């Protein structure tokens, strides 16, 4: 071989070699048709559900239960933007597979060419996800849904996603994203529903009057046109600077994306949570002496408590869960009865999961539970304390109107929070799905029955052991009988969570 290697022709040959035998037109048409049918089925299902929810809301509104739909829509779209930004910063947004990082990055070639496909892929994913989510939000909450409102929602969501990911990309180009910025983004994810809840509490009439209906009409097109130009400009600027992204940044992003992709494909929400979280690094100026620790149980609780307090993002997520529950009660069907019970379980379980990081870490590193002189059952029961506390905080925020000044409600929701904490620990210690189990046929393909049943470990305990609280919410008044049953169920939940696997 003489002369310099032409990298473009080398890539062309490698791509041709990897492509395999040429596919027939029939095979391509079959795949395209299959994909189109799946997308159409998903769209019909989503719009059908959104329509059913909207009909329920309209029915409630005509029965004299209006809700601050404008505020709810604004909070949801703002939450979508912050979540997209956080995910983009956490995962890159540009990354390359490990084999590409190992092969291409050290070569004396222009890096931009290798990264442009990843950039476009990230932009496309963010744009599509935000567009679809915004359409669902609007289709569910807008009084009158027309083709125009759906199209405006689609374009609005697409532009929100595009701008967010482009800004994250420009930050990545500038170098490794500072840990402080990531933390600030995590806090922002929690702050948006919190602000919505505070505004609702402080100025309910004003918030009821927030009317964004004019946006979801033809009047939005001029602004959306300008927005499209801005999006295109940001994307072009980002793409032009891709060559400056450092190898260390790309390698770390590829590890995160690989981890998250694997967890998503295997339906392992626990692993996905670990992939999206950051391991603490660096040093601390101040240290905790743990002088209050007197033995292994207090050591477990103290370590998990300190870990939580040192994570502003986790605290923000806990508060956000409670505030989201408060805002959700603005939706008439969720403001009372079974709907409110569903919101209670969702908020309680989400907040408890924030506090269960210690349990999730111990599952990956079993030696962690063996560090202290405490049996495995007692360790798991001790690990229920901090998740119970985070659930208590969120549920207290969510049901603040009920619990203030009412001892029965306080005991009821407090005990339910203990059950949510135990459920989070049970979910953290659940075994991996058995992929050899029988498959369930669904319109979207086969799903392992074991994967489904494994995913339900944790939520099953939360639903069962919060039934007395749910009954109280449905009837509108707690009784001392319900309180006693709730306390007993909470104790039972902790015992169940402490059960460890047989040898």
């Amino acid at each position: 071989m003489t002369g310099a290697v032409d990298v473009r022709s080398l890539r062309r040959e490698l791509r041709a070699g990897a492509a395999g035998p040429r596919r027939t037109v029939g095979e391509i048409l079959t795949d395209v048709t299959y994909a189109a049918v799946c997308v159409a089925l998903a769209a019909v299902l989503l719009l059908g559900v959104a329509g059913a929810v909207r009909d329920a809301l309209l029915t409630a509104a005509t029965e004299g239960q209006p809700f601050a739909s404008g505020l709810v829509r604004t909070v949801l779209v703002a939450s979508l933007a912050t979540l997209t930004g956080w995910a983009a910063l956490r995962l890159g947004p540009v990354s390359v597979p490990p084999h590409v990082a190992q092969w291409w990055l050290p070569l004396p070639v222009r890096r931009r060419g290798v990264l442009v496909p990843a950039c476009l892929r990230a932009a496309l994913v963010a744009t599509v996800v935000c567009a679809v989510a915004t359409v669902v939000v609007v289709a569910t909450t807008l009084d009158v849904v027309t083709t125009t409102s759906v199209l405006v929602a689609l374009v609005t969501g697409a532009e929100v996603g595009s701008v967010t990911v482009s800004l994250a990309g420009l930050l990545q180009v500038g170098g490794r994203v500072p840990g402080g910025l990531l933390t600030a983004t995590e806090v922002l994810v929690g702050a948006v529903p919190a602000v919505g809840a505070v505004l609702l509490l402080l100025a309910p009439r004003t918030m009821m009057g927030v009317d964004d209906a004019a946006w979801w009409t033809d009047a939005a097109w001029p602004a959306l046109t300008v927005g499209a130009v801005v999006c295109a400009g940001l994307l072009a600027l980002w793409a032009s600077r891709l060559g400056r992204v450092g190898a260390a940044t790309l390698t770390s992003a590829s590890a995160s994306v690989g981890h998250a992709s694997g967890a998503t494909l295997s339906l392992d929400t626990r692993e996905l949570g670990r992939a999206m979280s950051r391991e603490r690094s660096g040093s601390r100026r101040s240290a905790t002496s743990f002088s209050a620790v007197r033995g292994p149980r207090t050591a477990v609780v103290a370590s998990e408590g300190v870990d939580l307090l040192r994570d502003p993002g986790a605290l923000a997520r806990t508060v956000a869960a409670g505030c989201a529950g408060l805002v959700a009660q603005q939706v008439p069907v969720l403001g009372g009865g079974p709907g409110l019970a569903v919101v209670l379980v969702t908020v309680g379980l989400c907040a408890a999961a924030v506090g269960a990081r210690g349990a999730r870490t111990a599952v990956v590193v079993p030696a962690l539970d063996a560090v202290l002189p405490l049996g495995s059952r007692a360790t798991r029961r001790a690990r229920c304390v901090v998740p119970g506390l985070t659930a208590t905080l969120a549920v207290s925020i969510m049901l603040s109107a009920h619990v203030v000044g009412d001892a029965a409600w306080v005991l009821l929701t407090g005990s339910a929070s203990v059950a949510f904490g135990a459920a989070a620990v049970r979910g953290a210690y659940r075994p991996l799905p058995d992929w050899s189990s029988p498959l369930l046929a669904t319109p979207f393909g086969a799903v392992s029955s074991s994967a489904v049943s494994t995913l339900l470990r944790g939520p099953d305990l939360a639903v069962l052991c919060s039934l007395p609280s749910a009954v109280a919410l449905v009837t509108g008044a707690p009784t001392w009988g319900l309180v006693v049953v709730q306390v007993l169920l909470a104790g039972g939940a902790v015992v169940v969570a402490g059960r460890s696997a047989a040898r």
Partner: protein
Amino acid sequence: MVLRTHGLVVGHDRSPACGPVDVALERGDVLSVVGDNGAGKSTLLRTVLGLLEPVGGRVEVLGRAVDEREAWFRAAVASVLDTEAFIPGVTAREHLLLVARGHATPGPEGVVDDLLDRFGILDAGSRYPASLSSGQRRRLLLAAAFARPRELMVLDEPEQRLDGDMRRALATMIRDEQARGTAVLLATHDPVLLREVGAPVLVVGDRCVVVHAQDAADRLAGDRG
């Protein structure tokens, strides 16, 4: 009797990794374990720690069947294997403090500072374990094993990622453990550590035999040369 094995056969998936092992460790006994790669050293240690089921025979710690999930076992046995287990969200010093306080070690702050100094990571105490080098994390793991009471200590190749001075210091600490009455079971590839510890050596293979430390160290040194 701190550790006793009765015709213990270790392995994976019911397949033996080495010959049967019969050992008995009293208080203050040290037993080093050597063998070729894949001979079954780590498998033996993990079986003693209850992390693997024996293929045959049985193992007892403090006269009881091994169950690593039980509080009495976790209180009595300190181990350092190749797994890194650090309490999340706390610095290196705080990790040791939690371990010490969790085990009700008297004077925990003094014990922790002394260990950080002896293992040469005093300056790293305020850093999170993820920021430490692999050698420093290894030292932190070893320090955690010494920060709490123990009747049996199980160490799997503790010399990994330690420099020569640290290995000699470790050997001194193991001899101190012996004097204190702790039984130590230690797997190693390091002839210097074997000589410095000077304890009987179990050679793991198709036939497991006990030899003198000097003979085992010479053999290891010869293999390397």
